[in-house]
């Protein structure tokens, strides 16, 4: 079975400051990794994913995440946040083998202060 831990339930930052949202996972098999974002009153949207290849993946709006297999982590970063980044962010994994279902972390609420 897989589990995902997001170490911070809430992260407040000032606009234009850098941010890191932490995600660690546990799995006995290799996994694919995802970050989903949920803006206020909207559904979940895929932000970025790691399937294979380069361990650093980027989104179109400036976020990036790095897969670290030895630390079983997939932290999400952005060098300079904007008010529009205010949302809840979910880390999730799917195993390569076995029951291929998304397992989510509990979410991190990112609040941007002007």
């Amino acid at each position, binding site marked *: 079975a897989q589990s995902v831990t997001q170490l911070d339930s809430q992260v407040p930052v000032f606009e234009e400051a850098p941010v890191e949202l932490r995600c660690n996972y546990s799995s006995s098999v290799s996994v694919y990794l995802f970050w989903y974002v949920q803006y206020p009153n909207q559904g*979940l949207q895929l932000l970025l994913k790691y399937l294979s290849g380069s361990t650093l993946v980027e989104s179109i709006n400036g976020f990036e995440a790095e897969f670290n297999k030895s630390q079983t982590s997939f932290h999400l970063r952005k060098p300079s946040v904007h008010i529009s980044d205010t949302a809840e962010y979910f880390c999730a994994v799917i195993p390569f083998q076995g029951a291929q279902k998304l397992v989510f972390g509990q*979410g991190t609420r990112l609040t941007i202060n002007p």
Partner: protein
Amino acid sequence: EAGVAQSPRYKIIEKRQSVAFWCNPISGHATLYWYQQILGQGPKLLIQFQNNGVVDDSQLPKDRFSAERLKGVDSTLKIQPAKLEDSAVYLCASSRLAGNNEQFFGPGTRLTVL
């Protein structure tokens, strides 16, 4: 391309009543998922369909929850009878195939059981 549609958006019922949620996935998506998201937690998969067959319903409380996907398109999720702990957002998602394919989420139905 139209997104995943869900209705109703909000529902308030008393415990022991019945309730049903409807989902229309993105056209052509073979896989459909129902998730339960309790406040402060990440989404948890309840049931996964591949076309009109059930792939995984291991976390569906079958004594009170049921779901169907007739003709492999629309799906309904029913709760009968509802309990207080069923208060949550019920999310529907779809993907072209299962596995590491991106899942597209609907806006969700917020259920409050009094």
